[in-house]
């Protein structure tokens, strides 16, 4: 089947040094906050941590590090959870670059790319290796600040086009079976987005950020509208009135709620956001906050 080609309103990605600084600051602040919450300091520098071992409680220890489950079973020998940096951990960041991500403004792919940039910097701050994947690009591994320019180039080379076949997504996600964390940045407009969750490896933490354009969240108020799917070219003509527009908004909210509930049942953090949301919001939602 031939795939229709459209001149989409926000097909490309544009990043600059200001965005890079903003993403780094965001990631650093997040890493520092998680470090403080872990209750362990490494010579003043804060970084990402994961559970390593237990050690006996000592007076003055951060009470947030106490494993209260163990304390409930043995209230005389409290144990502290000792965390260590996530050195060697793998994070897989998947960006949907299908045609539907070219909608906007603000562009959904642009919003996803900015979020991926911040996530990649967070992975680096926590000593993890970030692998960035998309269906239409070769993957990129981001491990050090030296490859920041390569990361920017990779993101800016993304262009929303084509369709997002389930098989392609499964193939991409299969490469991330050994990843500790998987971030899916998409509008989940695939025929069966929940089927992607089948690729999830045991023990991996998945976070889904569903990005929609403002025009998808709210329908136009009135007039003859031609709704077009940028991936299939399929269209539907509807003569809208304000009641129908309101009904659409309701259907859209119900669908999002249902989708999030299904993700929750599969132990996957999922959020739906507008592409007009701030980078901070997108970043926090992508992390499952």
């Amino acid at each position, binding site marked *: 089947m031939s795939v229709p080609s459209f001149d989409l309103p926000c097909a490309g990605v544009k990043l600059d040094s200001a965005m890079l600084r903003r993403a780094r600051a965001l990631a650093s602040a997040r890493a520092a906050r998680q470090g403080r919450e872990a209750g362990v300091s490494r010579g003043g520098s804060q970084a990402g941590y994961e559970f390593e071992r237990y050690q006996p409680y000592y007076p003055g220890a951060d009470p947030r590090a106490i494993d209260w489950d163990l304390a409930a079973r043995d209230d005389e020998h409290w144990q502290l959870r000792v965390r260590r940096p996530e050195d060697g951990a793998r994070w897989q960041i998947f960006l949907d670059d299908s045609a539907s991500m070219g909608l906007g403004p603000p562009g959904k792919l642009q919003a996803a790319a900015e979020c991926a940039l911040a996530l990649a910097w967070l992975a680096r701050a926590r000593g993890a290796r970030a692998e960035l994947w998309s269906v239409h690009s070769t993957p990129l591994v981001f491990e050090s600040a030296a490859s920041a320019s390569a990361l920017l180039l990779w993101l800016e080379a993304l262009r929303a086009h084509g369709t997002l076949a389930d098989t392609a997504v499964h193939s991409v996600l299969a490469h991330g079976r050994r990843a500790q964390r998987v971030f899916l940045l998409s509008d989940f407009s695939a025929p069966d987005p929940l089927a992607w969750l089948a690729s999830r490896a045991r023990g991996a933490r998945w976070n889904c950020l569903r990005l929609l354009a403002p*025009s998808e969240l709210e329908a136009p108020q009135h007039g003859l*509208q031609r*709704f077009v799917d940028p991936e299939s070219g*399929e269209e*539907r003509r509807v003569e809208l009135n304000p009641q129908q527009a309101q009904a659409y908004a309701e259907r859209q909210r119900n669908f999002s709620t249902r989708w999030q509930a299904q993700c929750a049942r599969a132990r996957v953090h999922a959020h739906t956001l507008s592409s007009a949301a701030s980078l901070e919001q997108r970043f926090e939602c992508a992390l499952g906050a």
Partner: protein
Amino acid sequence: MLHWQSPLLLSALLVPLVLLLWAARYPVAMRQWTSLLFLWKDQAPSGVPRQWRWHRPPLALWLFASAWLCATLAAAGLETSSGAAQPLLVIADRSPSMNFPLGASTRYQAARQQVVEWSEREGVELVWQESTQPNFHAFDRYDCLWLSDALAEHPERAGLCLSGAKLQPGPLAREGRGRWVLDGNGIRFEPDVYPATSRQIEVRGQLPAAIDSLLSLWCEEQQLIRSERADAPLLEVVFPMSACALDPTQRLNGQAWSARVGVAAALVQAVQEEPLLRVEDQAVLLVSRGSLRSSLCQLELDEGASAAFALEWAAAFERALREPEECVGLDERRASGAAVFRPPNLVGPRERRSWVGECALAAALLALAACGVALRRG
């Protein structure tokens, strides 16, 4: 008041009108991209455009139609003028050549008809001023129109209507009993054309003896018949009805002669009459075409001035003598130009204001806005 440089271009206004009507009948659906098309699947598809319903055309089309309107106004050369329309003064040439035939009418009638039709079409009031020798250059104004058959110099400001002047063969001038005629090959003389009845001059009143004898000699030389009452005379000579005494204080001075005269009641000069002789600033000899009037009732020539006196009075008689109706001068019978009609600008250029620039600018801005709206709506 609106004026157009190219009013035919206003027909382009039909284009946006048709587009708006079409858009109102068949609305253009706005394209909305969505990745949630399935949420619209259960909505009733819009079949309504096929029904006879009117819709409000999209904003982009309104902007485009407005841009087209402004561009059309600019192309048509929109100009405005203030003040009410003023009447047009037509300076009409009524010289003999204007009576030459032109088609089914005469040169004058053809030109006048063209001006009248134009004025009715434009709603312009006409004021006519006719003369056998019009002074056109005194009326080179925006509120005037020159009407003639041919003119060597065209007006700068006034309108112009020339009937055109082709070669018109025919009699040129009378000489004795015959006449000179212009035909296709040249000028020839036709003898014995005019009988005595058509060569009459009418003399009324008591002529001073010197003038009376001179007139008789001049008539003999011109082969004219002198009478006291004639039908259609070539010249009317009118002197006071009764003789009077010489006035020693009054002298009449010619170019090389002088005389003592007696003057009757002062003459009232008509518009077409020209004074040739005066006594103490009072005209005593008035001539016009076909007429010679004098208030001299006595005249006594000074010594040695009879030849100059005869020459000057003979010249006055010849100046007043008119040609027969059919005789028209060679200048007027020659071909001297094609028909021209140039309507006048009833309002001078300083009083007009052109809106071409403003309309073009508005068209450009509206077109940009239409593009912007169209792109934004996808």
